[in-house]
Structure formats: C-alpha cells, structure tokens
C-alpha cells in the first residue's frame, strides 16, 4: 500500500483526461488568444470552448459570465473587492459570516482599512448561517453579502438559495465562495440566483493554479488586474491556456461522473462513521450531519493535539490535515471551530479527513486502525487524558 491521500480537501490527483488535455495543449504550441492572426484564432477557439464547458458546470446562461483566474483566492478577491469598489457610491457596508475562508476574511479586512464597514453574522452549532440573520444584518448602505457554500473545515453547507433570495429581495449583490463544492455537488447559478460565484479547478481533479469567477451579466466589478482586454475586459493579462484546457477537461469528467462520485463518497462517509466507534472513544464529529460535503469529515479527538496525530499518521503512510493552532501557522485555534462553540482543547485535537475517488472502504479500515494506534500512544502521554480518566474514576 503506497501513500494514502485522505487530505483531498487540500490536494487531489489530476484526472487522466485533464493531464492528457494539458499535454496535448502544450504540444500544440498555441499562440496568444489576443492575437489577430491564425495562431491567435486557434488559441481563441480553444479558450472559448473551454469557457463554454466550464459555464455548463455551474449552468451559467452565457459563457461570457465566466472569467478565468489564477485560483479560487483570486476569484474571491476579485468578487469582493471588485464589487465593493464598483458600488462604493451606493454604500460601504458588507455582510459576511464568522466561518469564512481567509480569502474572504482578509479581503474584507483590507476593505475595512479603506473605510468600508463589515458585519459578520454568527453560525449555529453545526456552523450553519440562518438566512433571517443575514436579512436583519442588511442595511440601507449594504452593497454585498458574501457567504460561502461549503465550509472548508467542517464541510457544512449553507442554505445559499435562501440567502440569495434574501439578497435579491433587498437589492444587494450576493457573492458565494463555492471553491470546495463546485464540481463535487450540483450547483446551478441560474436556479440559485447567485450574482458572483468563486470556484477553482483543483477541487474537481483539475490542475492547481486555475480558477474562475462567475459574474452575472449586468454586475459591474472594478478589475483587480488592469491592462489588456482579456477575459471580456474583466481580467487583464495573458491567459493560462494550458491550465484552462485542463480545467475544462476536468469539468467534463466532473459533470459526467458527478452522480457516481457522490454515491461513492456517501458510502465512504457512512462506512467511516459506522466503523469509527469500534476504533475510538471520546471524540466529536463537527459540522452538520446531513447538510454537508459528502466526502468530508471533521473529527475532534479529545485530549490530544492535532499536529502530533498528523505526524504519526504521516509516518504510517496516511495524509490528513488538522486545524489545531500549532499546525495552522496562525498559532490560534480555528475560528470556524470556535464559532460553532467548540472548546479550545477540543479544537486543538481536530482532524479533517477528506475522501477522493480513489478512496475505498478497505483504506478507511486501515486508516482507522492507524488512527486508533496513534491516539492511544498520544493519550498515554497527555496530561489532559490522565486528568479526564481520574475524574471518570472519581465519579
């Protein structure tokens, strides 16, 4: 058994269709889509057919509503800052929620330095935003609501259709960071009524370093990148055509296999949760039990710290991630976990386990055995576990 990836939220393999399409694109030595000669025409055709494919993935009515970017983070920055700048004469207030990704949090923080105001609404114990809370947070001066679809730490899905409806009624633009859900679960921007949707290629087995922003027709943004007329004048700079071709190829596979993959993920998640009590005690499962990403589990192992579990599992050939302060680089416990009411100590022991198309129930069984072993070793060292055991014995 080789090295096993159970950290699919952070990295996935390329589907063969995407890598083949990219190799072909490199060999074809396309020209610059902006050129007026034959080489340019050829490249432009490839670019526009990729755009049509990616538009279909989220059911955008017009391919011109898709702007290719360098990653999900760029899409988010472009949506949030671009819209705030474009509408600042109408108002300077934005609404978000407490469990957003840093791309949103820090874009908003930058806007606050420029005089914008931000209201961040709380989430419930499952990490879900109540659309009525969003409605109450909207003021006369509100220009944008930005609330994510799938949370990257706990997998919880927000009720984005209801949030979009609230925004529409109030005449406020709605941006949704859907980086961790597009390509995994069905998303229809037309049916949902979303104005701006950020997504990226790597979460659906496409290449890293390519993303896209859906911009509903009629929504004006200030550009982050000024220069040439690329991307329908919304993002200047020569396109990463090879990456875009890879993204489109992965999108085709995602549309073709979505139902099959969903079924696979759901079976794995069910298996994992059913087997877990046989291997481990004293743990918590975070996030909403049903309204969640099907390939994602947030597990808080009590009385031990996440980074040390990750290191031990790594030694045994399993990749998972943790949201403990020690590993995050920020040296503070995850804002998402604390927002759902988790204690500091429990947040410290939180692992994120995410499945891919190549995960099997056998892999999960092997992983759970390795996890149980690691936790046993670490608990034997842990003063918190010793104290908890003493308290149990005393009762």
């Amino acid at each position, binding site marked *: 058994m080789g090295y096993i990836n159970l950290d699919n939220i952070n990295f996935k393999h390329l589907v063969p269709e995407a890598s083949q399409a990219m190799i072909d694109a490199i060999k074809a030595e396309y020209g610059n889509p902006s050129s007026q000669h034959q080489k340019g025409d050829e490249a432009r055709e490839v670019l526009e057919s990729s755009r049509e494919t990616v538009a279909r993935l989220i059911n955008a009515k017009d391919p011109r509503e898709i702007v290719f970017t360098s990653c999900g983070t760029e899409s988010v920055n472009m949506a949030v800052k671009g819209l705030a700048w474009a509408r600042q004469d109408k108002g300077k207030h934005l609404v*978000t929620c*407490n469990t*957003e990704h840093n791309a949103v*949090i*820090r874009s*908003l*923080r930058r806007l*606050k*330095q420029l005089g914008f105001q*931000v*209201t*961040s*609404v*709380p989430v419930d114990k499952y990490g879900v935003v109540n659309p009525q*809370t969003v409605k109450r*947070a909207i003021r006369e001066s509100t220009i944008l609501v930005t609330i994510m679809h799938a949370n990257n730490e706990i997998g919880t899905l927000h009720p984005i259709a209801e949030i979009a409806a609230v925004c529409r009624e109030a005449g406020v633009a709605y941006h949704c960071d859907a980086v961790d859900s597009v390509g995994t679960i069905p998303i229809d921007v037309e049916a949902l009524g979303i104005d701006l949707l950020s997504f990226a290629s790597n979460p659906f087995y496409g290449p890293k370093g390519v993303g896209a922003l859906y911009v509903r027709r009629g929504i004006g943004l200030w550009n982050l990148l000024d220069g040439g007329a690329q991307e329908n004048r919304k993002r200047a700079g020569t396109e990463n055509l090879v990456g875009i071709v890879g993204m489109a190829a992965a999108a085709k596979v995602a549309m073709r296999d979505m139902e099959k993959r969903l079924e696979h993920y759901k079976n794995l998640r069910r298996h994992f949760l059913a087997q877990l009590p046989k291997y481990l005690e004293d743990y918590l499962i975070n996030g909403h039990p049903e309204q969640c990403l099907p390939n994602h589990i947030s597990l808080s192992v009590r*009385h*031990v*710290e996440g*980074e*040390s579990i990750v*290191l*031990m599992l790594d*030694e045994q050939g399993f990749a998972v991630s943790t949201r*403990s*302060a*020690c*590993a995050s*680089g*920020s*040296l503070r*416990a995850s*804002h998402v976990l604390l927002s759902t009411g988790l*204690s*500091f*100590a429990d947040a*410290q022991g939180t692992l994120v386990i995410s499945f891919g198309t190549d995960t099997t129930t056998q892999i999960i069984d092997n992983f759970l055995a390795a996890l149980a072993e690691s936790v046993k070793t670490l608990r*034997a*060292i*842990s*003063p*918190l*576990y*010793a104290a908890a055991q003493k308290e149990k014995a005393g009762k």
Partner: protein
Amino acid sequence: MYSKTVMDHFKKPRNVGEIEGADGIGQIGNPVCGDMMTIYLDIEDDVIKDIKFQTFGCGAAIAVSSMLTELAKGKTLEEAKKITNKDVANALDGLPKNKLHCSNLGADALHAAIKNYEDRKSGKVMPDDNQEDKHEHDHDEKCYCPYCDSELGDGQTFCKSCSLAEEGPEKEPA
C-alpha cells in the same frame, strides 16, 4: 519541517508518564496556547534521580519534553536550574522559529517542578497543592509572526507589521 532529532524524540519519547508520590511537580502552558506540559521529579540528596513528563501538544512540544528529561536526569538541582529552553532547542538541533515560543516550555516546567520541591521542603506549599500555571516564560526566546517572521513584542497577540494575523471580522452589533 522538523530536525531528525526532533522526529526521533517525537516518535520514541523518553521518560513518559507520572511518578507516584513525586517530590516535585511542575506544570506549564494551557490548551488555549496550544501546549501543556507536566514534569514529575524524584529527588534524592539534591540529585534528580528520576524525571517523567506528560505533554499535550504538537510534535515539537513532545520532543522538547522528552529531550528535557534526558538533559535533566542525574543532574544536581543547581545544575538543572541552569538548563534553559535554548539548551533544549539546541540539543534537538533546532526548532522552527514560530515554535520556539509556544512549544519550547520544557525548561520552564522543570524549573517550576524544582521550585515546587523546594517550596514543599521549606513548608511553603503542601504536596497536594495545585501547581497553577503562571506561564512565566524565561523569555530567552522571542516570538515571531507565523506569516511574516517579524518579531512580536511582549504581550502582543497579533503582528503589527503585516496587520493580518489578528481576529476575524467584527461581530454583529448587539
């Protein structure tokens, strides 16, 4: 990320556990900071005859505790008091910069345990008194911003240079 010596001590930690009826106990850190360490001492004629630890924390914290017990075992109390957090980090062939503050608490815990032993001896505290964490770092190591590596001052909880490593967005007004 970690040196070979750190990984060795993390994977095979030395002197793990609790000493029943220990002569001195020192506890430092808390889960809010990320790490928590307890040191148990068995002392005979002012020599550390046995030392054990319990640690809740990352790989670095566990390796630090293990290395510290190796450095302190068999030392006289006067020698042990001279062990610094820096000595422990050096013995481990270094630690990542941003782990120096939060995880390198071994010597502090050892000094707390020795003080606890001396206080008991002089009758200042009873053996079963709780050793509350004072979190008094020796501060021979500075703290660094995990994003931009600039030095953080005492009590500074976020980085002023990059102004990013602070709290999330403001809360909804009540």
